[in-house]
């Protein structure tokens, strides 16, 4: 199994719902708490597993605003695992999820330097690295309904821009949608083979219209209107 996410950039409106839902689930989850620094002071910050980048492409008036959620890509060839000196960082054989064993991590930050996606964050109070777990403490919970066994970000996304599934299964929803919509990996040239994929914006087909300058003046147009017999 190779579990991961598909994020549909055609419909992501950048609302941060996924990020906050992730925060609340994981704050009280397997790697919780997630600290907040100066939560009521100047320049508040904290540990988040999922952050939304906003940027623009093109120039006015043909610019496009892009909202780009980023979290751990659960790479097949994860350098963050290779560089970890304590073995805390590991990739699970059974489902490909990359996790950090909080008992082994010493917070050396090697993994965050190795990760080009900015997925790993240091919890300054515990001195350990934290990151997206794909809600591993939720997706295998046999005591909740099957439809709820998904990462919090996927369950909550109001635009249904996030999908979760097994990329090893060619018939899974994620595999199919990546095939059909030409889903892509972020920075494939780096060779980490990320599991998560992004779907590019759809292209809308032009609507057939007949443009023509109508040169008749007002009087002419009024004359053209003929009453039709429409009975109520």
């Amino acid at each position, binding site marked *: 199994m190779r579990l991961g996410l598909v994020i549909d950039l055609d*419909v992501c*409106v*950048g609302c*941060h*719902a996924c*990020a*906050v*839902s992730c925060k*609340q689930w994981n704050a*009280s989850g397997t790697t*919780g*708490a997630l*600290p*907040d*620094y100066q*939560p*009521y*002071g*100047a320049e*508040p*910050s*904290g540990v988040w597993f999922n952050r939304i980048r906003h940027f*623009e492409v093109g120039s*006015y*008036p043909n*610019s496009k*605003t892009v909202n780009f959620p980023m979290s751990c890509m659960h790479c097949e060839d994860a350098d963050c695992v290779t560089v970890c000196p304590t073995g805390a960082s*590991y990739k*699970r054989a059974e489902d490909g999820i990359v996790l950090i064993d909080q*008992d082994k991590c010493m917070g050396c930050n090697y993994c965050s330097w190795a990760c080009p996606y900015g997925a790993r964050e240091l919890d*300054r109070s515990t001195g350990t690295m934290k990151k997206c777990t794909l809600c*591993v*403490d*939720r997706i*295998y*919970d*046999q*005591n909740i309904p099957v*439809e709820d066994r998904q990462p*919090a970000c996927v369950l*909550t996304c*109001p*635009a249904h*821009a996030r999908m979760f599934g097994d990329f090893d299964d060619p018939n899974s929803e994620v595999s199919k949608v990546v095939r059909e919509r030409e889903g892509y990996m972020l920075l494939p040239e780096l060779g980490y083979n990320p599991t998560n994929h992004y779907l590019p914006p759809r292209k*809308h087909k032009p*609507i057939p*219209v007949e*443009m023509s300058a*109508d040169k*008749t*003046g007002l009087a002419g*147009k*009024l004359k*053209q*209107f003929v*009453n*039709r017999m*429409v*009975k*109520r």
Partner: protein
Amino acid sequence: MHARIPTEDHARQEVKYSTCYMCACRCGIKVTLQEGKVRFIQGNRNHPTNQGVLCAKGSAGIMKQYSKARLSEPLIRKPGTDRGAGEFEVISWEQALDILTQRLQEIRATDPSKLAFFTGRDQMQALTGLWAQQFGTPNWAAHGGFCSVNMAVAGLYTIGFSFWEFGAPDWDYAKYFIMWGVAEDHSSNPIKIGLEKLKRGGGKFVTVNPVRTGYSAIADEWVPIKPGMDGLFALSIVHVLLSRELFDYEFLVNYTNATWLVIQNPGHSDDGLFLRDANGQPQVWDLERETFVNGIEAGITPALFGDFVAQDGRRLKTVFSLMAERYLDERYAPANVAAECGVPAETIERIALEMAHVAFKESIEFPIEWTDTWGRKHDKVIGRPVAMYAMRGISAHSNGFHACRAIHFIQMLLGALDGPGNFRARAPYPKPIPPHQLPENNVDIINAPNTSLSRPPLGFPTRPEDLVIDERGNPLRIDKAYSWEAPLSSHGLMHMVITNATNHDPYALDTLILFMSNMAWNSSMNTQAIQDMLRQKDPESFGEYKIPFLVVVDAFHSEMVNFADLVLPDTTYLERHDCISLLDRPISEPDAAADAIRYPLVPPNRNVRPWQEVMVELASRLKFPAFTNKDGTRKFRDYPDFIVNYERSPGVGFLSGWRGKDGDKFLKGEPNPNQWQAYIDNQSFFAHHWPDNQKYMCFVNRDYLEVASDAGFVGKVEPIIMQFYSEPMQKFRLAGQGLYDGPQPKDPADKERLTKYFDPLPLWYEPLEQQRVDAEEYPFYALTQRPMFMYHSWDSQNAWLRQIMAQNYLYMNARKAADMGLKDFDWVWVESRNGKIRCQLKTMEGCQENTVWTWNAIGKQKGAWGLKEEASEATKGFLLNHLISELLPERNGERRITNSDPVSGQAAWFDLRVKLYKAETGESGSWPQFPAIKRLPTDHYERPDVLRYDARVEDNDKAQS
């Protein structure tokens, strides 16, 4: 080997369903509690509003529940200290209620209008309005006057339902969606769910907005219009549709007043009114019978076009002929509006033609049998799948009423209303046009002591006689709603209350109650001046303030709380009973009438009471008739008891589900003592799904209207004919022209405004403020919007949401900035005719070139909202409000007039024009700065440098109480 990953300990958890209140969306939530602490808030999969999803605000409810800004005891301004100094003393609830009861008793027994009660959040207007009506004051409204009344009123005077929230796009079947000026707002989850459905189905999404953020980011086409020009753009689309004869002839003849005959008699009192028969029925010309017939009836063949002569010799034209004459004029040709709108003519024409193509060439037919109000059976419904939604960008201009009507014109021409794939009504709408409810305007009743009003304070005037003015023409309401200054102000003008009350214009108040509204900060125009007004003493009454007694009801320590004489601390949404009622603003969707409740999920750990409870308590103490038994004892034990047992009319109460003694009736039925439990057992909402034959064309759908009539949504089963031409508007215009048979204004300013702006057909005019401001000196339009993760919430207090944004910037077009030598993070001065501010700049591509904008309500006063004084919101964040005046620029010989739409009284936030220039080196930080608000005596909250919230750990938030 790695440790096995533990899952949740469900044995320690409890799951409850309620309704979110992090914004105005009212989504269903599934709350997991871990031994009383909030573990996880999710969307409720079964809920009609959000269908399982939840936005950032909803998910951050935990941090609201444990906010450091929570009020915890009733407070009174410390004797001998000045208002606004922030010195308070704790008092008991008994003391607080005694003080307030005594004060209110005296007002009610002398001059009830001296109480004004205005509410910010307005999801319980059915109760607050009833309370004000029972008290006997006309001075009540919610925040709609400074929010979106243009959308509500334009819709309700035109199509019988409206943008805002009495209608919704039919996302399942729409093929073309055009969004007008929606600032990341309203209907937050439903719009996101809908946009994805639309795009998945291959529909096209066009956004008309000067700024490309949020929803607009994913639009297939962005139309970066100049602010305030939407009405002109829409009327140009009307021009294109008319000139190509692209309109739904059947729809116009059957369901609109396009065929009605308008009297052409300039200079006379009947000019511009409909030709009516002896019974008052509007007349049309029947092409078959060649005579005038009743335009409401069936069996007629009305002429859509033409000039006619009445039997008495008066000249007549059909509404549609009047429209053709006006909008086919070259004034509205795309080429002639392109420069003003900032949109190429080709784009305007193409969008009009695209809409027409989708409406007529890609229409949908469902084989659904339905019967219309004339008894005619139809074997299908036809859907013109062009959907629209419009909000703040249209609404917040002083030409917004007409702009919104212009948009409804496009929908009517295309026949794209309340059918599959277009813009559909949500019960209890559609209603008659306008709804049959008039505001109380009987002077004797309003002035009578200890007397309830005979009608609600708000309603829908249809003629000058319905205005709420005295015999001399002076306003009877403190906000001057329903006066000549704003005749159709059906949500009141909350933004004028403090100014008018301070100026004792039209009269002085005694007590102002503000519920959940930050009028001393981001909810007021002209913030600094408003704060000064709140502090202003009355030289004629020693020691008294101009507004003598100010009661603030809120759950959190806002800037407004700082100015209170009496603070009544409210509960959070997870701590109280609430109902989201069909009598008010329900959660209905086009396919279902629906309402919802909240109930206490966690016990409050502070000495706070729900405002609903306090209102019922006060109503009982003051012996309001509806709250008192014949023997003088109180009728309702508490709020839940009131909700179950109060009946507006027999069988119709606040909650429509599980009515009847056995709980087996819906919409109508006698009270059910177990109704709350029934809601709780059913995930806190009720939905009545309309059968197929009652889903569409509700405005003339007999089977739907029969149910609607029985449930009290409408008075009787009759067709609701959409109104291109608005006769109520014409009646006010006649009054302005001095031609009306009835009340007429005396002030030349009113005459001019009525004559110009009460056009019965939509027109575009330059926004009022801009007519009086030099565009060369102030070259930029200035706008605000709320970010999605804080829309309709004041969540800078929220430890998680403020991490997404704790400082706002002023955004402007990158090329324009470069031309002016400005770059990212420069500190700039921004000046308007009303004042200046200093703020930090960011440039972007997705911003119309003549526009600057910022995120509203991020800026906070130091010390407010439980934040530390050094919070970025206070040091770097800013409000644009300082630049906006609640009054139009002064004009010689004219009284000061509200900066609002002249029809609806909608606050004209977006009419602002500014100039900007780089601050001097060394000038940094936002300006103006205000003194830090003092900590409340009850505020013992710890503000830790590091927060580690974990619902499983008992003691990690020990400073929460």
